[in-house]
């Protein structure tokens, strides 16, 4: 197989409150022989909140980020659902609206950049599944996760709106997504099914609507627990922050003690590939990872 190369858009979270995500992403890429070129020039995607304040500004900034992947001639991979949504949304809007693209490029030209639309944007999860291939991954698994029941938590922004995700994230159906389940199986684990796996964790309203956000987190954790999960796995660091750090607020909101270790997608893959807990930054979790 030809060596896979991507431009990695880390987003902010992987460089701040979830350092273990960046660490494990790099560790897994190395094990699989995937080259990830860090886009250090990139700025924050706005997380769909800057978009509420100043939509045009958010388009310009996200287009600038994509420009740097285009310069390298590489597909951009993201490791955060919300980065994926906002970057892919920007790309989609510019690629389908020449007038808007020209307006954005007029601004970008002030700093010597031009958005062309030549780089694809996809989440690392889908790059692994579609480009690397699950069969190839299975062959590299040397510590199968067969003793674990693992609950996939997809996170909204990787699967909805499907109109957008069909272009970037492999087009799985948001009402019955399978990518994370397939990945769990490829790592030798047992995927568990529960209603909240494709629902929202509430992260984006945590400050404005803390009760709503906490109930949603509680539903996710309790659903996974009731399905007998030993731990959860998610491709999104924002879901991770909610599920890993906020379980006490979630417990209060739903009137039941809920708590489960939650792994980032690459941490799970890394475990199956034989990475050490330290290589995957497992010590950074608030809900302690007690099974390795």
């Amino acid at each position, binding site marked *: 197989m030809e060596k896979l190369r991507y431009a990695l858009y880390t987003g902010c979270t992987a460089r701040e409150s979830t350092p273990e995500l960046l660490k494990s992403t790099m560790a897994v890429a190395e094990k699989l022989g995937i080259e990830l070129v860090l886009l250090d020039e990139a700025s924050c995607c706005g997380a769909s909140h800057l978009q509420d304040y100043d939509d045009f500004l958010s388009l310009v900034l996200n287009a600038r980020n994509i420009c740097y992947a285009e310069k390298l001639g590489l597909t951009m991979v993201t490791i955060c659902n919300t980065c994926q949504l906002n970057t892919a949304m920007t790309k989609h809007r510019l690629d389908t609206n020449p007038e808007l693209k020209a307006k954005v490029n007029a601004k970008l030209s002030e700093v010597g950049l031009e958005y062309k639309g030549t780089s694809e944007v996809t989440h690392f999860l889908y790059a692994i599944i579609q480009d690397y291939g699950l069969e190839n991954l299975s062959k590299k698994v040397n510590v199968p996760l067969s003793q674990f029941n693992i609950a996939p938590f997809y996170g909204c922004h990787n699967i909805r709106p499907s109109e957008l995700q069909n272009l970037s994230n492999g087009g799985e159906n948001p009402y019955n997504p399978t990518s994370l389940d397939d990945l769990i199986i490829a790592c030798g684990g047992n995927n568990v099914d529960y209603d909240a796996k494709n629902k929202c964790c509430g992260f984006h*309203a945590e400050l404005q609507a803390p009760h709503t956000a906490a109930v949603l987190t509680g539903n996710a954790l309790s659903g996974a627990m009731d399905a007998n999960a030993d731990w959860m796995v998610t491709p999104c660091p924002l879901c991770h922050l909610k599920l890993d750090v906020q379980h006490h607020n979630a417990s209060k909101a739903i009137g039941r003690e809920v708590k489960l270790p939650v792994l980032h997608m690459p941490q799970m893959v890394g475990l199956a590939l034989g990475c050490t807990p330290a290589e995957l930054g497992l010590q950074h979790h608030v809900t302690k990872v007690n099974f390795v």
Partner: protein
Amino acid sequence: MDEIKSQQVTFKLFRFNQETDYLPYYNTYVLDVTHEEVILDVLNRIKWDHDGTLSYRRSCRHGICGICSIKINGKAILACKARIFDLIDVFGTDMTIDPLSTKRAIKDLIIDKEDFWDKHAQITPFLVSDVEENPSLENLVSPHDAEKLLEADYCIQCGACHYSCPALEINDRFIGPAAFAAAFRFAADVRDDASVERLHVVNEEAQGVWDCVKCMECAEACPKDVNPIEKITKLHNMIFEAGIAKNNVATRHAVGFAHSIEKHGLLDEGELVRYSEGNIGVLKHMPEAFEMWKNGKIVMPWNMPKSKNMDEVKKLMQSSSTVKF
């Protein structure tokens, strides 16, 4: 002529009669369905061939009246539009048929939609305009101005988005995606004189747009591609543009991103929470913050990472900003 394909499907059908039943129950039917059939055909067959007491709503049979919306395995659909073979592609051959909201069921698939209409009433769902009673000319809207509605006027008020919204399910004061889309539809109409009043309604805490969790369920659920969350984002923008954004945790949370990006390119997570909540409000986050700090999840201000080529980011922030707070 194409060959008619058929397949066996197991339908679990929600049954409940508010007047006689204490709890709902499900009836199971195993039916051969053809590739031409939609869910409404199946409901008709069950009613006509198996159980005449089954109740559901349908009228136009053309995806226009919006009355036949129900849920299949949790996915909101129009019964008259959803092809069973498309649903088999997604779910396989086991399908549970539920009303849009089991909590609001009156009889079988028929629900009480009063809450849906109440939310609409809240946002003044009609054009407020001083139109001359005996005009000498037509009151024309140019195609360019009509496009500003972003097809929000395609809504058929089926309720699919409304009863798929998790924020609404938890917080019943929340106005919800359908009524927000309607608020946008009129607020964006060049003939309307009540835009600002409407924006005030959707700007209120608990009921307004700020409580949306951005799950995109409404965009996914809508059978008419109204894309309510897109309209909700527009309402946020209009609130800032109209200068009526209040200085509160929700607005500061949006504006705080711009401050961070201007300084670091990246988001300063800790500072965002402090700025949004204020110096006192931020204290309630201390227990989490302490746990995070203990585990190496808090970056100290002096270690805050910065994007490379910050001069570009700064310049673009200057030249491309379109609103002020």
